[in-house]
């Protein structure tokens, strides 16, 4: 069983939903990401999505666009992110999912990517702009290396497609709470929970909900419905604002602890 599946199994028997945290690898510098991830784990993150910076991140809002830019400026590439991942794996057992746009992975080669990712200790990957209909060769290589392919599902995804996406994913499904780019929102889209229920009706996979979730009250709102919540921009914003400060890791820990507290089932408001 994969690290990701094991994590969800443990969460199932516990009193809290999972917290999935996204951050861009190498932001603001490749030497810092390992400490950030350990700090996130200490605060209660259950799974980490490690972003590969890309020059043209069309699915991202300004916060993650800037992170990509900072990371690229510091010289990060896909090989660099895999190296970061390897260094995290030396010190932690937390499930790690590589998050990338397609072109850097294409350039690296699917076969080499999956081989090197598996060797580095990755558990899964999500390629933002690799539509499942085009993903045959990729999924074959992922399967071959025992990595979990994770696909996105949007509020506008048809039931027929949801079934395909569910069959093509392993580990968990990433549900996009609203259509649009990444970035914090004041409130959770009214389409989010119905989406969770729709997917639940046709899939047995754990469901993680993300896009726009950034505060404890969002966590409390979704906790009764989801297996995990994904937080990206709120964490990346903190890294962007305080990237140079020594105290950043402890603040990241505190941020995660606060978010994770909102995911505890006994405190959540149903």
């Amino acid at each position, binding site marked *: 069983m994969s690290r990701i599946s094991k994590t969800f199994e443990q969460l199932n028997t516990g009193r809290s939903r999972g917290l999935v945290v996204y951050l861009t690898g190498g932001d603001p510098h490749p030497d810092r990401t390992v400490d950030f991830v350990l700090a996130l784990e200490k605060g209660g993150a259950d799974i980490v999505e490690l972003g590969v910076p890309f020059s043209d991140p069309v699915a991202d809002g300004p916060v993650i666009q800037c992170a990509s830019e900072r990371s690229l400026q510091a010289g990060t590439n896909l*090989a660099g992110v895999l190296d970061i991942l390897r260094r995290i794996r030396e010190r932690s057992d937390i499930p790690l999912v590589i998050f990338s746009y397609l072109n850097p992975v*294409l*350039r690296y080669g699917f076969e080499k990517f999956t081989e090197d990712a598996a060797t580095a200790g990755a558990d899964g990957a999500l390629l933002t702009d690799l539509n499942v209909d085009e993903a045959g060769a990729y999924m074959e290589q992922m399967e071959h290396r025992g990595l979990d392919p994770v696909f996105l599902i949007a509020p506008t995804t048809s039931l027929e497609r949801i079934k395909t996406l569910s069959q093509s994913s392993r580990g968990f499904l990433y549900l996009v709470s609203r*259509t649009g780019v990444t970035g914090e929102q004041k409130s959770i889209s009214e389409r989010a929970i119905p989406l969770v229920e729709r997917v639940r009706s046709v899939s047995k996979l754990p469901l993680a909900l993300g896009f726009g979730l950034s505060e404890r009250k969002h966590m409390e709102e979704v906790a009764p419905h989801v297996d995990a919540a994904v937080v990206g921009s709120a964490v990346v914003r903190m890294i962007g604002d305080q990237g140079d400060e020594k105290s950043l890791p402890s603040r990241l820990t505190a941020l995660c602890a606060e978010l994770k507290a909102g995911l505890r089932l006994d405190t959540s408001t149903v």
Partner: protein
Amino acid sequence: MAASSTLPDDRGRFGRFGGRYVPESLIAPIEELEETYNKAVGDESFSEELSSLLREYAGRPTSLYYASRLTERLGGARIYLKREDLLHTGAHKINNCLGQALLARRMGKKRIIAETGAGQHGVASATVAALFGFECCVYMGEEDMRRQALNVFRMRLLGAQVIGVKAGSRTLKEAISEAMRDWVTNFEHTYYLLGSALGPHPYPLIVRDFQTVIGRETRAQFKEMEEGELPDALIACVGGGSNAIGLFHPFLSDENVRMIGVEAGGRGSNLGDHASRFEGGLPGVLHGTYSYVLQDDDGQIALTHSVSAGLDYASVGPEHAWLRESGRAEYVSCSDEEALEAVRLLSRLEGIIPALESAHAVAEAIKRAPKASGQTLVVNLSGRGDKDIGIYREKMPDLE
């Protein structure tokens, strides 16, 4: 080669190129567009309305003009110009915009968004928005806003909002990224009017189909002028590739007609100094399609340079990638300087001031004609040079 004219397949593939590489959130709006388009194609009232708009509003057919003085000067091939520069708004872009505006109306959208490089597609989009009563928002890189300032004002005068994009090299690539972000956020009431034969399927197909009127007219006009003959070669500039594919496509099955696409050679051959995707790029994915892409060793998209904003883009329409790979068309590049020389020559000899983009095609004809005695060349004059007068003044100080 006849099979080429039936592509793309139903997955949007031209050989290994094309496809639909988008985040899941964009699948539903793309499928909605595809469905609308497939219905429209089979609907006679759609093509009738489009034809009458092209005729009465845009000024079609455009003429095919035998450029006798240019021909004489070059002393070789006979050169014909397809005069898309005579169209309303000054470039071929209006052909596509009228077609897509009809699709947007069918879909019940109230707002259209567009990207623009040279500003010609932005102006054409703002124009159809005014004509159809849509709200219109155009994304444009800040560098392009500077060098095509006249078109920025035209768009505003037409009632469009122009949003400057600051990222990257502040040119077309960044404008498309920002338009895609708007689209994924607002597609329920917003139509994305993509301006070239680029992007995820079905855009390369739709834009091509709306531009093939160029090639269909050219074919008929040439035959009429030249006793049923076809030209020996077609030459067009290739930014995303819409004016070129519009000219080429109706000739694909005519094996004796050569096709030459001209990319921007910019100021040199180093990555970042040009937009010659075929010479300097590799297959990859940018903005939803698999095609040739200028990129670095890490798969990061490269910056580009061309004096011509409309050719200054890191990728190229997937059908051109296929036509090149299959050997049906060839692709070359002309430098900034060659294009500017072509502007001077065409202006002096024919009284036609071309757009900088189109001047790249003219420059290629200037290179080829002397060695091609007895042959006929059709050059797509995709747009007029009014928008570029500021650049011409800057680059031709001897005329001040």
